[in-house]
């Protein structure tokens, strides 16, 4: 179900680095659209329809709010639609820009939710354990802490409920009281846990010498091929950006670079890059079916 995840961590990381980077910097509407479509599709492939639905429910209101807020505070642009009561103009350009910026944020959020699914903390430590050991250790500990904290919170809340202190019942004061009890228990637990961790690490000789990390990742032909594709596509897209064929300006008037064979090929490359994990997935499914039918 998740073929791209089985690739070498380096391939995963370079892929998300370039895709998220491009999503953050390309404001051309076509690029935004490609990125949004592909990230939503990949999110769906990775996590299923339910998860995608919840994120879309958060993202659509966010896009509309951002477009509105930008137009309320940014009055630049040559197309004046109407005037605010205080006399400042409402311009088409600021609405469009707000819309574009919001789609960009949505893209990045969706890509990061895919990133979290694919780049697990063991992959992260494998990649960065040598270059910045303490940072990657802290990162993996923190990332692990959040779900652990959530789990413990649930357990404590349940135990408190068993004792008759339910945070979902009663008036606001009693609810706040029982909530505080839970919070105090959680803080104590977290502090105690951190002390325990520190003691345990010291007892195992942390910091006395170089650390090694166990991993079973191997870089084979398949990974090389994928990495090569990602790098070639990225370089081509960056060359297109540097050449200005996918530039788009929002202020003072909306104007994009003229469509040409070059710009269309860059868009195609971007589409291919964004769609790569899904294509790999489909290819793998096809291969699996082909192998099965032969037996």
């Amino acid at each position: 179900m998740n073929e791209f995840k089985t690739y070498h961590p380096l391939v995963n990381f370079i892929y998300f680095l370039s895709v998220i980077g491009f999503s953050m910097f390309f404001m051309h509407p076509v690029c935004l659209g490609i990125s949004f479509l592909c990230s939503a599709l990949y999110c769906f492939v990775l996590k299923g329809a339910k998860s995608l639905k919840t994120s879309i429910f958060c993202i659509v209101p966010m896009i509309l709010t951002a477009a509105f807020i930008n137009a309320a505070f940014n009055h630049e642009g040559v197309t004046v639609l109407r005037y605010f009561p205080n006399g400042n103009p409402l311009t088409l350009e600021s609405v469009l820009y707000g819309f574009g910026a919001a789609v960009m944020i949505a893209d990045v959020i969706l890509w990061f939710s895919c990133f979290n699914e694919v780049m697990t903390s063991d992959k992260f430590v494998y990649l960065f354990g040598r270059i910045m050991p303490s940072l990657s250790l802290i990162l993996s500990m923190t990332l692990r802490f959040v779900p652990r904290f959530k789990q413990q919170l649930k357990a404590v809340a349940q135990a408190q409920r068993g004792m008759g202190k339910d945070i979902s019942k009663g008036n606001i004061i009693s609810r706040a009281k029982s909530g505080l009890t839970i919070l105090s228990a959680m803080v104590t637990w977290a502090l105690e846990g951190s002390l325990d961790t520190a003691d345990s690490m010291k007892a195992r000789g942390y910091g006395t010498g170089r650390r090694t990390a166990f991993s079973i990742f191997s870089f084979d032909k398949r990974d090389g091929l994928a990495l090569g594709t990602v790098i070639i596509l990225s370089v081509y897209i960056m060359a297109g950006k540097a050449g200005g064929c996918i530039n788009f300006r929002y202020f003072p008037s909306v104007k994009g670079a003229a469509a040409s064979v070059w710009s269309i090929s860059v868009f195609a490359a971007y589409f291919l890059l964004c769609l790569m994990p899904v294509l790999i997935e489909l290819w793998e499914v096809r291969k699996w079916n082909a192998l099965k039918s032969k037996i």
Partner: protein
Amino acid sequence: MGKNRNRVFLGIIIIAVLAAAYWWGGNAPGLKGKSSIELNEGSAVSVELDEESESQFADISTENTESGEKSEETDEAEKIDDTSEKGSMEYSLENGMDIDPSTGVDEYKTEPVPEGKPVPVDEQEAEITEKELTCTLSVRCDTILSNMDWLDEEKWELVPEDGVIFAKQSVVFYEGESVFNVLLREMKKNKIHMEFENTPMYNSAYIRGIGNLYEFDCGEGSGWMYKVNGWFPNYGCSRYQLEDGDEIEWVYTCDLGRDIGGSNY
């Protein structure tokens, strides 16, 4: 040893980045270091430097002769400005400005106005009547023409060839209105884009941009300034109450008013 060397390198890189940010980020003297800080010291020095910077950009500026003429005009204007009176405390107090003697400024940080000039009137206290009066209004940005290389390329198309955004013409206003009221109404009426921002500290609107030409668009010291009957008031445009026949000029400066002869700094 190797670790220490790395640290030294890191330090040098950080200092280089900070220096570059200081230079290009606008805190360096002059316009990105192109002109000089000595402009403050006197008109004689500033004339020399003006000419120097003019010749520096002569090859890029669109109309050489015109900008040359302009700089002469500005020099004259600067001289006039220098000889013009400083703010007069007695006059301002007499005319009802509420100046705090310990700080020397009024409630909204305005220093005393020169003798013979109108004192600021807060828009909350201004009484606007039905009586129609006329004044002249013009909006110009010709200083940009001689500094085109500082302007973002995307905005070149917005600058009119003669630098006139709103040609000088007679407009109607109602007794008690301020310069800001007139500008807002005329820009709306003529479908010219204009953005402002209310600044409570000075109790006035601040004009951020007219015709999509904004503050800081043409160098770090650029923005819109106004003069009434040739004088650059030392308070905001919402506090300048107009009289019949006043001449309002909105002009774009690229150098904190020095290039248009209206430096309040």
